[in-house]
Structures are given as structure tokens and as C-alpha cells.
């Protein structure tokens, strides 16, 4: 059975070619969802939406909807935002106009008047909502949250199954909306890092249920296999492929140097990539997605332990490939996932794995923390294993996001990264982080490309040129500040800039030291307070420097300064937050609650911004 390839009439082609150069990235995403929705409904729209892109759909192509739809997202890396745009577009195409809103900006007083609510929620770190969405979550969980008896809702949860609290933020929302009396339109789906296919199916299902007088059952089946075309496939004005997550740009490696000096307890690299000819642009604060390759030694070790031939052909999304190549480029083979435990428990019949599979998430998480894929397959051999059985337990290899450490204004057509090489020992074997290990292995080899794409980070942007900023960063958390300062220097921005930087040792770990020295000399950087935790006792951290400079921090905040915090989410960000509360209390003469409220207000006004990981 073959499907004829659909062709466009020449008139349609003309229209498309006129349209294509005029759409930006967000609009392209929206259009892809829109057409996907059309395909699902099998009806042509009466008119195309005007120009509002994902933010709001103004046209109602089919029968007017009885109910209003709001698509709400909470995002850290931008994935939820993309999915939300696709939901809105698909719904619009089916005649259901949709508003898309970021939890960071959403006016919670509107909640009680919502009718249909589709929520795309990412989970961050140890089961937390994305930093920008914390306010929304707190409101919803609190006593002020309204009853929602007339609201229908559906939640799509995005997460990473290697974390213990997988999709926890989405689960919380799903449960809480029900608790508030809302009725569930469709069951929640939890998506792993390879969320695209699951998300597409879920969108089709939900949209089908949103369309009035349309029987829910069978709607999903109306969506053609393969779902909506991704933005990555959209033709750009010059006919080249627009680069995104699915079609990353092979960026030539320009430089890859170790920033940390001899004797350092760390290895932190400065990586420069060329974006020339890619059409990719970014703003300071954005991240770069890096598609890594697995450690060839790990691939060989795995093949060896499993007695599999690396040359055997296996199917991948890119077509048939030798297993060695698939393991190198297509699958996560370092850390295991619950899916892998499940698969390996079945294959090996090992009691220990079965107990883990059936036990609680915490035990599974702890076990996975201590046992990588290689450790598990060594411990529980599966005789006569075939490659397909292995691959069925593995997740697709995911790109890793790094804050961009440069500004296009200072380094046109380049993106710089600050990458800490993750190295540790487990069961007597050296291990490396997937992407950081890859970047460390390639060194500064010539003629080498790194596949990348740009991931916008709308919640971590520079303010107007005259606004003072305080930048707090530990370790590689300093990366976006290098971009900020390059940008502000290039723009001749008048606002004062204060950097509070933390690392271990002055001699070896003062990342970009000579650049800061020059920026201070040139007056771009107003002030730099470094904190080195291993040079002297007592240990000094960024929050200690903030506390010491509390009076000045308070004065800057009162002058309208924005404060940024970037880096470690586990210890640094909470410590900095607590210290800021102390500072506001002490120097602002406030009680503890008022100080907290002061910081909450800063967050609401987007003057206290986090990019932590």
C-alpha cells in the first residue's frame, strides 16, 4: 500500500512562498500546529489567522466554539512553550480559538473565569516547577486559589525520567485542578525528554475533545502518523532548512580551551562555535542545544559486555544504521531510566530488578544514581540478547542545553559556551558527562562540527539599557553574564553592572579573569566581588559577598536594579535567596514576611530572575 505524495497547486505554492519569508520562528511553530490540526479535522479553514502568531488566535475558521480555551505553560528550556503553541494552533485549526499564556505572566485572578484550560508543565530540578512559574504554582496550591467547578482541563507533563521526581510539577497541577473542582478533559500524559511523539498524540486527543459536537473517541486516529511537521522542517526564505532541535546546525568548532588553570579541582572549558551561514540568532540569556556523541569507549564496552556486533544493522529514526553508530549517536547509554530497569527486569528475570521495577520511585532513582546502563548489563547478563531488545530499553539521545556565553554584538556569527566537564568514578570506573565529556574529548580538533540549535530563554533577558543589574553566578553560571556584559558594552548601555562570582580557587578557577579585569578597567563592569570557597577559611561563597555588601545591594535594588542568579540550583540559589531576604530585612528595615514579600514582588516584576540547574 502506498500513499500518493500530496502536491500543491502552483497557486498554493505561490502563496506559501510569499508567506514563508515573512514568518518568524514562533509563527512557524504555530503554523505547523495549525496545519496539523487541519489535517486532523480534515477541513480547510475559512481564513488564516492574521498576525498574532502563537500569542493569540483571532480567527475562528470553523464553527464558533462554545467555550474559550486557554493554553497555559510553565517552561524553563522553552519546550513547554513550543508545545503550547502547537496546541493552540491545532485547536485554532479546528475552529477552537485559543489564548496562549506563560505562567510567569499569567494574571491569576483570571483563573476562576477560565473555561477550558490546557496546561503544559515542565518539571525542573528535584521535582520543582520552572523558576519562572513558581508564583503560579504557589497561588494554585494556596488558600486563595478559587474553586473551578466550571473549568475543563488537561495537563501534559514534561520531565526527565532519570530524576526521582519525574514530571512532578505536572502531576501536582493535575491533582490540584481536580481538587479545585475542575473536570478532567483528558488524562494526563507524562513525557520524557523525547517528548515529541507522545505530545503530538496527546494534542490530537485533547483537541478532538475540545471540538464541540465531535465524538472524542477516534479523534486521535484522525491525526496522520508522524503528526505535525516540526518547525525544523519549515523552509526558510533562502530555501535552506531552518535549524532547530530536530535539525541542528553543524557548527564548526572554532576554539576549545580549558579555562581552569593547573592544579584546579575542576575542568571548565570555553568552547567557541561558528554559526556562520546557519541563520541562527540568539539574545543574551539564551541557551544553545548541543547534540552530543557518546563516549566511543563506553560504546565498545557495552558491545563487549552484551556480546553484540557493532556492525549489525538496526533501525533508527534516521534509517538503518550499524548498532555501533546507533549507540554513539542515537541513544542514551550512560545513565539508565525506569524504562531500562523495566526492560532489563523482563529480559534478565533478575529478582533485584523486578523488585526495583515494582518498588517505589525513590528506590529506583537511588539505584539508577548508583548504576549506569553498563553496570546493570554487567550485573545481570542476558544471554542471547539481540540489539532490538537492548534499544527498546533505551531513550533517544537528547541534546544538552548550555547558556550562551557570548553576544552576537561582540562575536558575530559565533556562540561561546562555558562547559564544566563532568568526571567522576563509579564502581572503580571513570565516567564522564555525555555532552561535556564529548566536548572534552574532541578538544580543539580542527574540521570538527558540533550539531547545535538555539533555545530561547525569555525569562533571562537584559533590561532596558539604563537599568542597573546585579549578576550573581557560581562556576559556569557566569556564562550568561559574559554575554550580558558583551552586549551592554557593544550597545554602550549606561546601566551599572555588578558581578558577584563564585568558584573554588582564585589561582585556577577565576573563569574569564582577564576579561573581567579589562571590563572593570573600561568601566563596563562597575563592580566585581569574587568569592573563593577553597582558598581560605572560613569558606566564602557568593551569598557571603552579598551579605558583606548588603547595604549596597539594598541601595541598588532601591535604585531599580535587576538581580540575576545563575548556576547551582541545589545549594547556591536557595542560599542566595535566603541572604537576599536577610539583606532586605536588615537594610530595608522590614520584618521577615515583608522581606519575603519584597522579593516576591521583585520576581513578579521580573526584577529577580533565576537560571539555575
Amino acid at each position, binding site marked *: 500500500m502506498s500513499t500518493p505524495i500530496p502536491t500543491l497547486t502552483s497557486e498554493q505554492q505561490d502563496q506559501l512562498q510569499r508567506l514563508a519569508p515573512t514568518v518568524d520562528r514562533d509563527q512557524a511553530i504555530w503554523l505547523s500546529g495549525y496545519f496539523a490540526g487541519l489535517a486532523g479535522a480534515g477541513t480547510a479553514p475559512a481564513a488564516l489567522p492574521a498576525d498574532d502568531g502563537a500569542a493569540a488566535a483571532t480567527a475562528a475558521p470553523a464553527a464558533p466554539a462554545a467555550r474559550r480555551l486557554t493554553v497555559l505553560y510553565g517552561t524553563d528550556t522553552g519546550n513547554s512553550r513550543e508545545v503550547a503553541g502547537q496546541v493552540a494552533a491545532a485547536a485554532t485549526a479546528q475552529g477552537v480559538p485559543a489564548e496562549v499564556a506563560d505562567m510567569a505572566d499569567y494574571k491569576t485572578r483570571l483563573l476562576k473565569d477560565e473555561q477550558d484550560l490546557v496546561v503544559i508543565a515542565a518539571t525542573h530540578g528535584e521535582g520543582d516547577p520552572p523558576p519562572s512559574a513558581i508564583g503560579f504554582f504557589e497561588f494554585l496550591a494556596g488558600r486563595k486559589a478559587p474553586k473551578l467547578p466550571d473549568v475543563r482541563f488537561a495537563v501534559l507533563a514534561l520531565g526527565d525520567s532519570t530524576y526521582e521526581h519525574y514530571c512532578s510539577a505536572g502531576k501536582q497541577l493535575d491533582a490540584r485542578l481536580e481538587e479545585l473542582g475542575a473536570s478532567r478533559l483528558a488524562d494526563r500524559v507524562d513525557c520524557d525528554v523525547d517528548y515529541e511523539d507522545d505530545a503530538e498524540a496527546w494534542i490530537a486527543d485533547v483537541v478532538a475533545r475540545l471540538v464541540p459536537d465531535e465524538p472524542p473517541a477516534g479523534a486521535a486516529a484522525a491525526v496522520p502518523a508522524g503528526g505535525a511537521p516540526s518547525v525544523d522542517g519549515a523552509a526558510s526564505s533562502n530555501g535552506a532548512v531552518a535549524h532547530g532541535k530536530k535539525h541542528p546546525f553543524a557548527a564548526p568548532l572554532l576554539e576549545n580551551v580549558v579555562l581552569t588553570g593547573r592544579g584546579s579541582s575542576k575542568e571548565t572549558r570555553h568552547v567557541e562555535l561558528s554559526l556562520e551561514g546557519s541563520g541562527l540568532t540568539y539574545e543574551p540569556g539564551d541557551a544553545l542545544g548541543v547534540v552530543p556523541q557518546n563516549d566511543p569507549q563506553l560504546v565498545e564496552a557495552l558491545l563487549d559486555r552484551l556480546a553484540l556486533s557493532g556492525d549489525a544493522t538496526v533501525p533508527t529514526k534516521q534509517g538503518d544504521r550499524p548498532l555501533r553508530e546507533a549507540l554513539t549517536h542515537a541513544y542514551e547509554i550512560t545513565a539508565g531510566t525506569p524504562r531500562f530497569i523495566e526492560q532489563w527486569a523482563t529480559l534478565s528475570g533478575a529478582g533485584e530488578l523486578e523488585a526495583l521495577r515494582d518498588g517505589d520511585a525513590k528506590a529506583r532513582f537511588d539505584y539508577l544514581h548508583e548504576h549506569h546502563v553498563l553496570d546493570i548489563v554487567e550485573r545481570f547478563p542476558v544471554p542471547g540478547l539481540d540489539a532490538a531488545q537492548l534499544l527498546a530499553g533505551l531513550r533517544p539521545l537528547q541534546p544538552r542545553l548550555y547558556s550562551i556565553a557570548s553576544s552576537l554584538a561582540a562575536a558575530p556569527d559565533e556562540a561561546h559556551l562555558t562547559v564544566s566537564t563532568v568526571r567522576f568514578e563509579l564502581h572503580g570506573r571513570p565516567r564522564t558527562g555525555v555532552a561535556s565529556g564529548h566536548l572534552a574529548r574532541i578538544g580543539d580538533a580542527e574540521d570538527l562540527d558540533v550539531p547545535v540549535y538555539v533555545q530561547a530563554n525569555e525569562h533571562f533577558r537584559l533590561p532596558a539599557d539604563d537599568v542597573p543589574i546585579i549578576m550573581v553566578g557560581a562556576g559556569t553560571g557566569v556564562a550568561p553574564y559574559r554575554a550580558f556584559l558583551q552586549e551592554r558594552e557593544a550597545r554602550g548601555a549606561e546601566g551599572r553592572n555588578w558581578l558577584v562570582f563564585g568558584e573554588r580557587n582564585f589561582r585556577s578557577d577565576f573563569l574569564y579573569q582577564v576579561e*573581567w579585569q579589562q571590563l572593570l578597567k573600561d568601566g563596563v563592569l562597575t563592580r*566585581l*566581588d569574587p568569592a573563593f570557597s577553597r582558598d581560605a577559611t572560613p569558606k566564602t561563597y557568593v551569598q557571603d559577598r552579598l551579605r558583606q555588601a548588603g547595604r549596597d545591594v539594598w541601595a541598588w535594588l532601591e535604585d531599580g536594579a535587576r538581580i540575576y542568579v545563575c548556576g547551582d540550583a541545589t545549594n547556591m540559589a536557595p542560599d542566595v535567596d535566603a541572604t537576599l531576604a536577610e539583606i532586605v530585612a536588615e537594610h530595608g528595615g522590614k520584618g521577615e514576611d515583608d522581606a519575603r514579600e519584597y522579593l516576591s514582588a521583585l520576581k513578579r516584576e521580573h526584577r529577580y530572575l533565576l537560571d539555575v540547574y
Partner: protein
Amino acid sequence: MSTTKTTQAAAPAVEVDRSRDLSQPLEKLAPEESLKFHSDYLAGTIATDLVDEITRAVDENNNKLMKFHGIYQQDDRDLRDERRQQKLEPYFTFMLRGRLPGGVCTPEQWLKIDELGRLHGNDQFRLTTRQTFQFHYLDRNALREVMIGLRDVGLDGKAACGDVARTVMSGVHPGLSKLHKQVYEQARIASDHVIHKTSAYEEVWFGEKPATPRGDDEEPFYGKQYMPRKFKIGFAVPPSNDIDIYSQDLGFVAIASRGKLKGFNVVIGGGMGRTDRAPETYPRLGDVIGFIEVDQLVPTLDAVMGVQRDYGDRVTRSHARFKYTIDDKGLPFIKGEIERRLGFALAPAKRFRFDSNGDQLGWTTGDDGLEHFTLFIESGRIIDRGERRLLTGLRAIAQAGLCVFRLTPNQSVILSDVAPEDRPKVDALLAEHGIDNVPTKGRSALRLNSMACVAMPTCGLAMAEAERYLPDLITKIEGLLETHGLTEEPITIRMTGCPNGCARPYIAEIALTGRAPGKYNLYLGAGFHGQRLNKMVRENVGEDVILEVLDETLGAYAKDRQDGERFGDFVIRAGFVAEVTEGRFFND
């Protein structure tokens, strides 16, 4: 010191050019003169720089001022390129040189130096060619602690570098212990007299606010501009010329009668420093200008230093040493001006004789009945290396309180004033730590008469290796010596990483000064006891050429030398190199 300044004194008898000296306004002089003048007597903003968190360096001007406090900023040159690529500032460290008149160091002081070297100086310290100690690898943030540690045992870093009179040298002659004590006493008096007096030192390093703001009487002798350049003073005890009296700006040759110090012959105008391809710069040996009684020492210091202070070139720093002042104005004028300031004519110089500028290694019994052990220390580096654990061994001897330490001008050390009954204890401790002096294979007489400056990786001036390379080169030369049967023949060899002359290369029989990595100028023909400059025989050559030339000349020396003839004398007689009769002809 005397407050007399030429500008206030009666006009000199002869009309001389005053267009480049202290009489000129600051704007006509080198920028360093303004820096000194405006530094609040050497305080600058050093104290602020010491706590700068963005760098471990100090700024350029404060670095220049810190030299007067005994401190140089350096950086690890092995890491310079690497760290530049890493976007890190150079690996800045500091060298701190102490003031140790005559090189005499008590066990208590030795133990403190040892402790500071272990804590802050990378587990080592170094003995210098001016009989003092220096630390390398000091972190800027440790400088105050080191300074305080030194103060606690009566030591300081005053006048170890900078445009002032440097630490005063004194011959160590262990056999003439009674005379040494008398001369050393005068060296101490001289050192305490000539050091600068500014309270900035105590303020910067110990946080002691001066009782009154520093004013015009802060430096009665030096004034706000100090000397035009460094000024080196030394005392020699014949027949040893270990301090290289002819390399000092101002030298005093001890004249004694029956073990009693009578006075000194005065030697002026020595200096080693020169610059490659700058023929107007040259090393110069001092001139003996007369004799003074012991009690005329202090007035003589004031008079000689006063002449240089007032007439020295303050426009061009490479032409500012006393030797150039003398050659520019003429020796008669300078001598006349000194005598005018003294108020009397110098007596004619007394007869004296030198026989060597090296150290007599091993045990010597002094004329005071005490025992003295002179220990060879390669390049002056006090460090534990393999079996030879100098740092630990000398600490054990200091802890046992068995001796006083006397640092020699050849970077070695004398364990002096050992009671005869303690000699076996010293021997046992040396043996226990793998320390000996025996001239055996691999330790030729040439090696025992070698000196090298620090050079790479810490010295900012070095263009080639010295201390790290000379021992290897000597091993190769020892092959030639063995071939020619010269292993036991004392020959002086000195190597520096640049032409400035810290290891006094221009008065070594064989000298190598660095031009580029692996490339040296080779000099031959100096006098064995420092009485004659050498001359360049090959320019900018590598090891193969150096060994080729040495093989030829040493071979000829072994074959054709006359009885008792020194290598430096032989190469001139045999025509390998022309004799240098005066410094200003060095570059001819």
C-alpha cells in the same frame, strides 16, 4: 646620615655637566624620579593593592616601589602562554630578598627563614650572590605574614632592591675569624647607616601608622628621590676576594696588622650590568682611590654616596650607575669631590693581595680556635632534592644550635663558630641528610666554583635558562675536563639568564649570559680572583658551539699552561681572547 646636599654646598672646584642630575626639575628626568618623588617616601598605594581581590598582582608603579622594600613581582614564565589562553592572569608570585649584612645569620633567624620558605616559598629558599636569602613563589597575600615573620627575628627587606644602598657584603674568610668579626661589625654599622629610614615600611607591612605624617626630614640623606640607581657596598678580607670587591659601587678592603683591623682601602665604581647591543653600557671594575681609618668609615659612606646621589644620571636609567658617573666626570673630579666633602685628602692605598674569589670548601680551623665548615650549595638553592636534603639537614643543625650561619658571596654557606667538640655532631647531621662536599666525579672543582642566577621561570628579565641549566651543562663540561685531566683544577664559571649580571659573570673565567632560549654569549679571560674582566668570544651560540670552544681552549690549557697559570690568564697569553684593561673597552 649627613644632611649635606651638593645643591646647598659650595660649588665644586671644577665645572661639570649638571644637565642630567638631581639639580634638574622632575619633568626633565626619568619617570621613575617623579614616581619616587610623589610616592610619600615609598608608600605609594601598595597597601591598597595588597588587598585587591581581582588580581594577585600589584600595579606597575607599586611594583617599582615595592623593590625598595625588598620585593619584586614575578610570574611563572613556564605558564605564561598557557594562562593567557586560559583567560587567566599570569601566575604572579613575589620574590622577597632580605637584608642580611655580611651574610651572618643566627640559628634562630635561619629557622624562621626555613619556616617561611616551607610555608610560603614552595618548600625552599635561596642564598644569593650578595650573601643574603630570598624567597620565590610568594603569594601576594602572604607578603605581610612573611614580613612580620622576618621582623620577629630582627630581619627586614629594606634595601634589598631599589634605588638605595643594597645589603652590605662582607668577606667570610673562616680562617681569619678574629679579623672577620671586626670587619663584620663595620659592615653592620655601614648597613644600618645607609638603609632608608622611611616609616612607610612599617606602615605598609605592619599596619603601623606613623606618629607624624611623613615630611621633609623623613629621609635626611636620601630625600624624596633616593639614589639614581642601586648602590652596592662590600667589605673584602684579603687574601680572599670572595665578595668581588671590584664589582661593588663602593668597596672597602680590610687592612689589618697582626690581626687588628686598621682601616680600609676604598674602591669605587665597580658594576656588572650591561645591555646587549648597547655599547654605551659595559661592566666596569672598581678603582682603588686611597685609604681610610676605621673611624672614617661613616663619613666616607656619606661622601661617596652623596657624590653619586647628586651627580648620578637621573635621565637615563641604563646610564645611572656610579661607574658611568665616574667615567663621565672623570675619576680625578669624583675623587676630589669626595675629598672635598670629607674635608680631608685620602691617604695613599695600602698594599694588599688577593688570591681567589671562590670559597675554601670543607672544615677550617679559625684563629679563634673555632671550627668552620664551608658547604657548597649549587646555585644557592636550599631545598631537599633526592638524597641530598639540604633544607631538612640545615634545619636540624640550626635546631641543635651547633653553629652560626654565614652566607658566602658564592651562594654557599659556612657553618661557623662550631665548638671543636661539636664538629662530629655537625658531620653526623650532614651525613644523615646526604649532604657532603667531596670533590668527586660529577663534582669537579669547576662545579664548585660555579654560580648561576635564578632566571627562568620566575625572573622577568631572563631570556634564557641559568640555574636550571648550568648543572647539566657543567656535567657535559666535566666530560671535557676529564679528557684533559682538569677535574681538580679550580676554574670559575658563571651563568646568567640576561646581560644584567646578577651572578657577576663578567669577572668569571668562563661566563655565559643568555640571549634567547638555548642561546648564550660566551666570555673567557677574566682574572681568577676577580681582578680582570672577561671578553666575549662567541655571540648568541648554542650548547654545541660552547662545548666546542671550551674543548679547544681547555685542551690547549692542559697542554701548554705554565706552572700555576690560571685558565683566565692562559687564554689571553695563548691569544684566544684579548685582554680587557678597562670596562669602557669591554665592548671593543
